[in-house]
């Protein structure tokens, strides 16, 4: 029994590794692209004029107000009808990035707003312009404050990138489904996959914790922020 499972496990490994590669690709690209877009949206919300702020609010509400799955369907199945065609992996990367950006924007906005207003006054009083004040004073604090929320977002993406299997991306869950359909060993396959996600989650949480500790500065609490995306 054990030997049989070991053999099955080894046979499945290449496919699972393939899938894992896609899962990690989706996660890393989406968290990174989502971060840069999210930070722009957050800055637009806090410091933008009415028009910029309105645009950012509209985007964030639109994304957060609709299911990720529907967003992926629109990108992958919907857009071709107006001539915009993506491969599955492109569609998944785009959808997850755009989606994550909205959530990251909200974490970052909360973090930016939790930096006391006196910090901006002090920066401007030294003669820094607004951009310098944001870059040298506000963001270094806000980014540290948002690490816990960001860590949560990373794990969310790691796990929920599995939704990409619905638009034919051969990520980890999709590979599992493929193996299971051919071997009928559903329980073993999905147990393996669950273990892989679990290990990934534990390892990445640990890594992010270590990064957070290295970046931590006395007095800049990570505890300030709470609003986390529900898994």
């Amino acid at each position, binding site marked *: 029994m054990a030997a049989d499972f070991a053999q099955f496990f080894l046979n499945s490994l290449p496919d699972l590794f393939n899938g894992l590669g896609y899962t990690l690709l989706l996660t890393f690209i989406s968290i990174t692209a989502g971060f840069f877009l999210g930070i722009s949206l957050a800055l637009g919300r806090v410091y933008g004029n009415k028009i910029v702020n309105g645009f950012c609010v509209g985007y964030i509400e639109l994304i957060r107000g609709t299911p990720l799955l529907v967003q992926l369907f629109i990108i992958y199945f919907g857009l071709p009808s107006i001539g915009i065609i993506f491969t599955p992996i492109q569609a998944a990367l785009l959808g997850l990035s755009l989606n994550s950006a909205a959530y990251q924007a909200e974490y970052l906005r909360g973090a930016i707003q939790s930096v006391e207003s*006196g*910090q901006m*006054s*002090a920066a401007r009083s*030294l*003669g820094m312009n607004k951009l*310098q004040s944001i870059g040298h*004073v506000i963001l270094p604090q806000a980014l540290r404050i948002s690490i816990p929320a960001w860590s949560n977002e990373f794990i969310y993406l790691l796990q929920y990138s599995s939704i990409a299997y619905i638009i034919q991306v051969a990520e980890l869950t999709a590979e599992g489904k493929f193996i299971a359909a051919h071997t009928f060993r559903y329980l073993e396959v999905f147990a393996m996959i669950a273990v892989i996600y679990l290990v990934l989650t534990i390892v990445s949480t640990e890594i992010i914790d270590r990064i957070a500790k290295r970046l931590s*500065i*006395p007095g800049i609490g990570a505890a300030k922020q709470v609003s986390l995306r529900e898994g």
Partner: protein
Amino acid sequence: MAMLEVKDIYKSYGKVPILKGVSFTMEKEETKVIIGPSGTGKSTLLRCINQLSPPDKGQVWLDGEEITNPKTNINKMREKIGFVFQDFNLFNHLTALRNVSIGLEKVKKIEKDAAQKRALQELTRVGLEAQVGQYPAQLSGGQKQRVGIARALAMDPDVILFDEPTSALDPELIGDVLDVMKSLCGKVAMLVVTHEMGFARNVADEIIFMEGGIIVEQGSPKEMFTNAKMARTKEFLGRIGALYGEDETGG
């Protein structure tokens, strides 16, 4: 020509008028103290001078340049106006040294080593050479405020605005900060909002008494303390003297 000229400043928040025509001048290296009851607009006045809260009406001139002119590069002007805050507003994510050097590096574009060398000099000047590597959260209130003063000094300002620099401090820490301020007397112009009557009496070249958004009276400490013309001034000085024990601090 005065170094700093504040001319008929008006400022409202919403419909509430806070400053109702405030004018005064300051000379190079002069020390002026502003006193007056809470809510009178003293902080608002300081923030109008460096345009953190632009006035609705009136002008501010520094070295013959009009700060309030929209065409003026306000960031360039602010380099010349130090600001020391009641609640310090040190940059929380930077060490004491970097708090002082960051303005030199990012605003004056001085090379990092030179900027930090200068920052160390300023921190030594305020007695904090041992604290250069500490973050604000690791400093006492008095130390924080001295870093705040060093941060302002490092920019070589023409004038430093102090907004109740000792009000947030435990009584036993006030003396250190006042001593540092006294040591700056005659080296840089200082405009100090404070309730420390000892400091006002012994250090100020002139005292301005503000109430209700206007300057009620101004004069030398001697005139103000012994020979105030306005009844309101006498009353306020009497009350505040009793409250803050003018002989104990800043003397």
